[in-house]
């Protein structure tokens, strides 16, 4: 017979104002198995915890039930208390009488009855609880970072500096990401390349960091501490060992027809290319769709000119299997496609450009060598209109309902850069709201207005009419109610950011969830911002939601710290609530193995003595290290040979019975 102690928390007035604690205490005394009950204002406080600990010792309690807030909140707190008092922590159950009771019900009588019922269920379950001991698994002391933008680079550096191996996987030929495309960075206006390039070099030189550029993660299995990952290294057509990065091939390649991705299509590149001069690794890639050799079989100029014979047309995709203890997802973001915003003429007029294209236009290494001119006629613009919130905060089907967060600041930056370069050029910014939360951000934006004379207009642009060599911008100053018409030379659109198109596939591969907009979901919006629901997988950067560089870097370091926390342990304790097989009942049908999401169940042959005869039988076997405790197998098992510890068939049935009283 178990000796159950029940502890009822008032949670100040959170519970006690709706639930009559005295009645609950009185009812608890009559529940089968209960030998002790106690109520207290704040059970989770140290005093409250001590009540639990002392009672366990004094009254020889063998099971403990705490009726308080959600187990998602304080289950671990009370389990620790039980453990401190010498009781196996898994002998404790929580009855959720706050979130599921006092907070959602108004009628005191009904809420009190429900609280009693929930406590009864917890007591019924607790009586059937078994002491559980978590197993241990080793940790692969190596981290995988998916995505080589600033978030990925920073994460990799931090983890590597802590002394752990890091593999950095980047889809494109070079790390650097979106930040590499930027000219200056707000709010300090320092050169993006000047601060990013050293980090890229650091990453490439770090003896603990392996960069897999032009590679993709193809498959992820396993669990925290022991992820098994397949990385696909796409055929680069270049032998990375031999290539010195001299660049002769780039210059000699006759097929210079492809639009440069890095330059946002503002210039052309060769079929063999490095995305940009500071690329890391500084090894080119052959774009097989553009390359004449691959298309027609003739050419081969690059191979002829290569001094080291690094060109390898026969190269194939390679797959690499690697084990990791932790994974950090830093896959970044994209800009939305502006085709559906016909009124802005983006698709139809070369002088209507995105912010990112503007970055390339003003960049000294960009397609115009830093000369800010109109893409159409290479003339210096006299009037430039910037439009914010193109697709952001847009509830219609065309846009995104969220704020893209970075546009206010970079538009101010663009306007300032423009006025700095050409003081005689007028700058107009159409905005809905200007949002400058951030250190030094407001000052930065005010500088654009106050020192640089940028015209900020609260209002939006209705339509742009290309007229002659001008762009007639029809807008409104919503404050004055004046309808405006500006003859602009150039229009810069602050297009909304969005999650990478493949994000949900990546999410499925990693078993991490994505939100409505396909950004990855953090475990808790406030308290666990870099963790995911999948232990050992962390998030950093704009793949989790729109954010600027300072925030991205901060999150990257935070994710790195979390990962280091895992890697620094030689062993991890398992969730002990895993499935187990009763071999005497198991029929060996192995239906469980077919549905297990973790492939944690395998078959084995056993010899059983049944009524004096030896029978060799096939049975299922659970790998406790792989099992995550979903319990799906228990339902495929008709005879109930496989059961989930902590949530056994008997326990749940006991709860049902108790609740139905």
């Amino acid at each position, binding site marked *: 017979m178990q000796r159950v102690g029940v502890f009822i928390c008032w949670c100040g007035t959170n519970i006690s104002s709706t639930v009559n604690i005295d009645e609950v205490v009185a009812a608890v005394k*009559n529940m089968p198995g209960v030998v002790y009950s106690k109520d207290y204002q704040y059970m989770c406080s140290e005093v409250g915890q001590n009540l639990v600990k002392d009672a366990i010792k004094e009254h020889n309690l063998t099971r403990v039930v705490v009726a308080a807030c959600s187990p998602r909140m304080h289950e671990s707190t009370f389990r620790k208390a039980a453990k401190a008092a010498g009781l196996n922590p898994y002998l404790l159950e929580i009855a959720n009488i706050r979130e599921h009771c006092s907070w959602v019900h108004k009628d005191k009588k009904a809420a009190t009855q429900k609280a009693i019922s929930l406590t009864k269920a917890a007591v019924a379950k607790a009586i059937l609880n078994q002491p559980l001991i978590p197993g241990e698994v080793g940790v692969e002391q190596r981290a995988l970072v998916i995505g080589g933008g600033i978030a990925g680079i920073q994460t990799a550096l931090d983890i590597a500096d802590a002394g752990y191996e890091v593999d950095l996987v980047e889809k494109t030929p070079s790390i650097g990401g979106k930040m590499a495309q930027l000219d200056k960075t707000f709010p300090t206006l320092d050169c993006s390349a000047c601060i990013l390039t050293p980090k890229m070099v650091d990453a490439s030189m770090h003896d603990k960091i392996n960069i897999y550029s032009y590679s993709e993660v193809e498959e992820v299995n396993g669990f925290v501490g022991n992820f098994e990952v397949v990385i696909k290294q796409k055929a680069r057509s270049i032998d990375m060992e031999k290539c010195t990065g001299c660049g002769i091939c780039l210059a000699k390649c006759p097929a210079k027809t492809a639009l440069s991705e890095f330059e946002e299509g503002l210039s052309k590149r060769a079929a063999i290319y490095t995305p940009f001069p500071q690329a890391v690794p500084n090894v080119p890639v052959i774009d097989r769709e553009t390359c004449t050799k691959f298309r027609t079989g003739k050419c081969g100029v690059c191979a002829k000119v290569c001094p080291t014979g690094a060109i390898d047309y026969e190269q194939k995709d390679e797959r690499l299997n690697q084990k990791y203890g932790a994974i950090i997802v830093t896959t970044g973001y994209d800009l939305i496609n502006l085709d559906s915003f016909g009124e802005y003429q983006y698709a139809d007029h070369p002088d209507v450009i995105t912010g990112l294209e503007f970055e390339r236009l003003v960049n000294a290494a960009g397609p115009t060598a830093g000369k800010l001119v109109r893409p159409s006629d290479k003339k210096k613009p006299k009037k430039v209109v910037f439009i914010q919130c193109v697709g952001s905060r847009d509830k219609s089907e065309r846009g995104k309902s969220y704020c893209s967060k970075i546009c206010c600041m970079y538009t101010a930056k663009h306007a300032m850069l423009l006025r700095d370069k050409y003081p005689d050029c007028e700058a107009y910014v159409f905005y809905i709201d200007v949002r400058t939360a951030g250190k030094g951000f407001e000052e930065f934006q005010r500088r654009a207005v106050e020192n640089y004379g940028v015209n900020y207009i609260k209002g939006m642009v209705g339509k742009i009419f290309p007229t002659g060599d001008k762009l007639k911008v029809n807008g409104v100053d919503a404050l004055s109610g004046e309808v405006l018409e500006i003859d602009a030379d150039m229009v810069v659109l602050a297009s909304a950011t969005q999650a990478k198109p493949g994000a949900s596939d990546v999410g499925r591969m990693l078993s991490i969830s994505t939100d409505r907009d396909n950004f990855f979901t953090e475990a808790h919006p406030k308290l666990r911002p870099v963790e995911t629901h999948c232990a050992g997988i962390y998030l950093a950067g704009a793949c989790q939601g729109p954010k600027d560089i300072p925030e991205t870097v901060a999150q990257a370091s935070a994710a790195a710290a979390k990962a280091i926390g895992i890697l620094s342990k030689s062993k991890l304790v398992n969730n002990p609530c895993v499935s187990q097989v009763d071999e005497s009942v198991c029929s060996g049908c192995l239906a469980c193995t077919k549905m297990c999401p973790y492939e944690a169940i395998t078959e084995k042959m056993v010899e059983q003595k049944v*009524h004096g005869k030896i029978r060799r039988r096939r049975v299922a076997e659970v790998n406790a290290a792989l099992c995550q405790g979903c319990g799906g197998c228990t339902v495929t098992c008709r005879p109930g040979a496989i059961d989930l510890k902590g949530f056994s068939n008997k326990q749940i049935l006991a709860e049902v*019975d108790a609740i*139905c*009283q």
Partner: protein
Amino acid sequence: MKKIAKDQLALLWEKIDQNYQLFLPIAKEKAVNFSTWKEGAEVDLDALRTVNSPKNIIFPQTETYLTFKKEGKKLGLEVVSRDEEYVVFGVRPCDVASFKLLDNVFLGEPVDKFYEENRQKGLIISQACLNPEETCFCNAFAINPESAPVGADVATWDLGDLLLWEAQSEKGKAFTEALSDLLEDVSEDDRKKLDEVKAGIKDKLEDLPLVHVAPEKIEGGLKEIFASEVWDELYQRCLGCGMCTYVCPTCHCYDLKDYNGNGCGERFRCWDSCMFSDFTMMAHGNPRTTQKERVRQRFMHKLVYYPNNYESYACVGCGRCTERCPVRLDIVKVIKKLGGERNEL
């Protein structure tokens, strides 16, 4: 001897129902079983053999002993007893004979009070069999299907449009008296007709394929039969379901169970089957670990153990197992096998 026109029977049921719980063979969803009569019930007196035997009335499949109720820390108990006197109409002679076999067990010392009460409160009305089926073999156990069986308070014969009625016991006579306004005396013609019918049944019996089965041919003592190699062969096809024991009018093993219905509940007995793997399950496990031992147990009980105790076979030849066993492992085959006969083709 009395009689009643068959088209008057509905009135008879109604009349009996006023003072008794009345059990009749009633068809429900294609199955005929003894169940309580209600206005509009589909009574089927032609069905030779109900699926469940009327054993279910004197020894119900589930019978509550007592109910309990928890009040605070106290437990209140209440013994349950059968509330109403009852009448069973249409019990075939084989089934009437089975009651005696059950009486031997339950009314011997120590007397089973629940069973005793069930027997005392009941009045049995038999119905002779005019058309025994090919699976019938009651004759092998000296039961005459055409007769007024011992143990029936009233015996009846179905003569097509008439039902002949003869009270046998004191209880039966008093009961008949109470129904006098519906029953009339029989004529000489009726008696003659009855004799003819009886003789006809005897002829039919001769033609039945199974009536010549002879349990007496089983030779040897208990230990020899127990150790017989025949069991090794016989049991093999048994699927281990409990159908034979449940439809059998003489099987009488039961289990005791409690139902905990939230602070109240009941203790009940329910039929159990020696064919089940958890039959007589004990702390150390099951005493009969294989189906061979279970099959042997059942037939040893019917053909050896029971006769040793009560000098009568525990089978009445009703033919239910012969008809129902999914793999046709019926008692006729067992008797023949043990008696050294091969199955004729």
